[in-house]
């Protein structure tokens, strides 16, 4: 697996898309930090961008890489290598190269800004951790979709729909249900509903870290009560880990039976 990982990583870090992605974050981080003097607004803006963009890029890159390397994958399948190591290796190659663009692209301007001396370092680290998780989760989901769809166009379509659902539609439905059932106690429901969407989960984690949960009124207090405690923090991080492991588990199961 590590041999496959090594070479797909080499291939990907040299691709111009990785550089585009890297420079985008570099530019975003620099403008937000240096043209805006308030660190916490910068972090919130960054959060809003990261929470939408990281899943989108992870999804598109994952699907694209899978379909582009289909013929080469056939060559690899004919080598004495286990099937699951090929696909997990390729997946990690994609996920790690994307994560690197994110961490270095945002890290450089923050270091230049003098982050290590500021108390905001933990907010920033939280931002990076959720960014990394979202990359891992969404490229794994993308690999799953691509593995289950031989047709490229269909695969891309489903992947974009998946992103749209989790990033936009899910929140809409969530909100609608909150309005509709407002007569009932909804704190448990909103907690659970948040857990089932990695994007929402990441957003809540960052917002709570920034200590602006007061903005979220009563629900915010409930969230703070849960996610703010060590148990809650562990539960939510654990949930993100589950979001990574489940798709990976499905990848290794699907490739065992698949015909290429």
């Amino acid at each position, binding site marked *: 697996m590590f*041999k*496959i990982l090594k*070479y*797909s990583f*080499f*291939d*990907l870090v*040299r*691709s111009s898309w990785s550089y585009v992605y890297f420079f985008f974050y570099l530019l975003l981080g620099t403008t937000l930090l240096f043209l805006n003097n308030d660190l916490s607004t910068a972090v919130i803006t960054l959060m809003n961008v990261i929470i939408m963009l990281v899943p989108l890029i992870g999804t598109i890159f994952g699907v694209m890489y899978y379909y582009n*390397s*289909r*013929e*080469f994958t*056939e*060559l*690899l*399948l*004919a*080598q*004495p*290598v*286990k*099937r699951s190591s090929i696909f997990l290796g390729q997946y990690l190659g994609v996920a790690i190269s994307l994560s690197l663009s994110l961490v270095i692209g945002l890290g450089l301007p923050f270091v230049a800004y003098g982050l290590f001396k500021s108390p905001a370092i933990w907010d920033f680290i939280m931002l990076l951790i959720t960014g990394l998780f979202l990359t891992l989760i969404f490229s794994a989901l993308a690999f799953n979709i691509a593995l289950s769809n031989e047709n490229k166009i269909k695969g891309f379509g489903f992947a974009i729909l998946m992103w749209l659902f989790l990033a936009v539609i899910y929140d809409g439905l969530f909100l609608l249900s909150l309005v509709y059932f407002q007569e009932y106690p909804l704190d448990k429901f909103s907690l659970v509903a948040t857990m089932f969407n990695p994007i929402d989960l990441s957003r809540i984690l960052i917002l709570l870290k920034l200590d602006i949960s007061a903005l979220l009124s009563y629900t915010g207090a409930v969230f703070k009560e849960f996610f703010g405690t060590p148990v809650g923090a562990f539960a939510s991080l654990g949930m993100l880990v589950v979001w990574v492991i489940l798709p990976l588990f499905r990848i290794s199961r699907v490739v*065992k*039976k*698949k*015909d*290429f």
Partner: protein
Amino acid sequence: MVSIKDLHKKYGHQIVLNGLDLEIKEKGIIAVLGPNGSGKTTLIKSILGMVVPEKGKIELNGKSILHKWNYRQELDYLPQIANFPGNLRVQELITMIKDLRGKIARDQQLIDFFGLHPYLDKKLNKLSGGTRQKVNLLLCFMFDSPLIILDEPTSGLDPVSLLRLRELIRTEKQRGKTILITSHIMNFVEEMADRIVFLLDGKIYFDGTVSELKTSTGQFDFEHAIAHLLSEEHV
């Protein structure tokens, strides 16, 4: 060497292999022919373990290969389409495959043979189709495995390289290897093959030498003999 018994495979409702039996004991060149959709690629991919059959047995040197992967150490495969990670260099790709195999390779000899020296430091997405096919051939032939499977080896090659390829395949045959080929170029097959396996509707329809094929169909010309096999079926 290879023994296939009662192999069944279908994709959805479409039956591709329908109780195919094939025994390859001898060394030499065996051509797998058949019209489009007759199951050639599926047969090859089943031997390689890329396709999982519904029913049937495939044995290599007396051992079942189903759901195994280590046996691929003993075979080489040339895929039909040569498409490699675009941002790797030729030399890196060769190193990668050597790395995966962990076996001694004669890559230098084959780099000389195909004249690939000027391309070693080029990225794979900068290569022409023919050069890429040469890299493909090199990756396939650099390990000395007893069984070689070639899927359309002639595609995209210029006449000189084509001659080289024939020479290479003949040498490998003389060195006592079993070579399985699929090709649409009939004169290539006629010239090279020791045995013809003709597939139709997921079964073996004809199995014999080129001259046996000509006598059994009553045709003097190989291409006509093949066409005759097809027309017989559809009368």
